[in-house]
């Protein structure tokens, strides 16, 4: 193995220093856009006709029906049941936004492409966010479909709904939940698979994010977990938008969601860097 001397390293350093901001942005964009394209092509597990059918036509209405009927059985109250329908309509995006994204690194391990990705000098942030972009589209699509079920199957009244606010809430929550998925995905670098953690967080939002009952009904120690997940704010915003709240009046909730999502993204990014270092040290990159 050849070790570079200080003299040999020097010119590289100077070259890096000379790299302008514009060049860095262009490079970031190139990696990002390539990653977006690969993100769809590489997700063979998720991008198949049966997964589309399952994610859009089966799981969302089934989940909504389960909690709708459960609420009817316990509360004997349609309003309470419809409360769960809206929550679960937003939550239905989890399969794409959390589960699929969380499994990106695990999928690379299965396909044997993780090592190749890790050795590239490409910007990690551009690489990993780019690969999750396809799932933003999927998440928003699934949630939109779920709201159609909410209207036609579960009788949610959209007469006063502010569709602009609802649309913004759906798209913002999709983007912010992707950051949450990426955070979990980072674990997959070090562990054999992120599947277990992904499964936990796929369903955990049903319990802690105000999907089926207000976060305040949780034990005090569990409430911070709910408020740390962007979906909690997304559910609140969606409920408000259906009742007619404007984008402006939902501003505080949406802003909180944005801040929370960005924080989660950066925590995920640093976790990913940390886990990458750990995995390299312990030689666990190829374990699956």
């Amino acid at each position, binding site marked *: 193995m050849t070790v570079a001397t200080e003299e040999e390293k020097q010119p590289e350093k100077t070259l890096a220093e000379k790299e302008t901001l514009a060049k860095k942005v262009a490079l970031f964009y190139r990696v990002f856009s390539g990653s977006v394209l690969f993100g769809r092509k590489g997700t063979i597990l998720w991008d198949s006709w049966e997964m589309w059918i399952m994610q859009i036509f089966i799981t969302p209405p089934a989940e909504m029906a389960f909690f709708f*009927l*459960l609420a009817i*059985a316990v509360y004997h109250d349609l309003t309470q049941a419809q409360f769960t329908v809206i929550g679960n309509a937003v939550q239905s995006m989890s399969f794409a936004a959390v589960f699929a994204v969380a499994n990106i690194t695990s999928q690379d391990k299965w396909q044997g492409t993780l090592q190749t990705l890790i050795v590239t000098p490409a910007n990690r942030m551009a690489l990993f966010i780019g690969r999750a972009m396809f799932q933003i589209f999927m998440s928003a699509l699934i949630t939109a479909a779920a709201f159609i079920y909410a209207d036609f199957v579960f009788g949610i009244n959209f007469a006063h709904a502010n569709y602009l606010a609802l649309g913004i809430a759906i798209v913002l929550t999709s983007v912010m939940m992707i950051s949450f998925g990426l955070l979990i995905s980072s674990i997959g670098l070090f562990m054999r698979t992120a599947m277990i953690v992904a499964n936990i967080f796929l369903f955990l939002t049903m319990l802690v994010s105000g999907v089926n009952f207000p976060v305040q009904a949780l034990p005090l120690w569990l409430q911070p977990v709910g408020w740390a997940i962007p979906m909690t704010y997304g559910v609140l915003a969606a409920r408000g938008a259906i009742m007619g709240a404007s984008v402006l009046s939902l501003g505080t909730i949406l802003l909180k969601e944005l801040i929370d999502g960005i924080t989660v993204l950066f925590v995920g990014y640093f976790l990913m860097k940390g886990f990458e270092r750990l995995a390299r040290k312990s030689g666990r990159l190829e374990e699956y």
Partner: protein
Amino acid sequence: MVLSAKNFVADPQFVIPCIIAPFIFTMVSLFFIVSSSSNNVGASALLAAVLGGGLMGVWGTTVYGSANSIGFDRWNGTMEATLAAPSPLIWIVLGRVLWNTFIGVINGFIVLGIGMTWFRVGVGLLNPGLFVLATILTYVSMSSFGLMLSTVYVLSRKGGFIENSMEIPVYIATGTSFAVALLPFYALPISFIIGPTWGIEAIKRAAVGTAYAYGPLLPTGYWTDIAFMLVATLAYFALSFILFQRVETIAKKNGTIEEY
């Protein structure tokens, strides 16, 4: 069955995802019940919810584990060797299914333990003897259902689609957490042809004593439930034997065994 047990001990992680959904669903049920205490929902409702969660756990591992018993063979490249073995495939799969369903029963006990400690659910069973009998028979019935399901995996690599799609609908259709009578009328026939629906009803009757599922739709009793379940279970086993012979031949003819 022993091999499945060894595989589970060596790598238990794949079973864990199958029990998370039932666990979370039960927690939500319990929060619902606790928050609606003003509606006089009593200890029996809490116990029914915990039992429902346990049964969802058994379903979860049955649906996923049974279907995956063949799926893993495809994934690991051992499918050809399994099919080439002199033992009939159905006996190999049956052993795996029995083990997977057994893991689900353990999950049921975990849910019960959490319910007892967190929500102080009492375990005062109305008729423990009948409860144990119904539980064992439902376990067998679910296994027979899982066995039938696993034939799809022999034929196609798309079996995962079916297992993923079936999980929640099967919880709904079999009345694990609420009365089947709440379902739309057109969905009831599906519910009634699934053997474990009757078993779940019998378990709840033995545990909390009330005619829980069907309400005025079908005025059945414990033994009627058991009889309906046994008929369905026998039908599943018979169908599985026929299907396994057919699908094995078709898969060999089509050369799709190694596809994954």
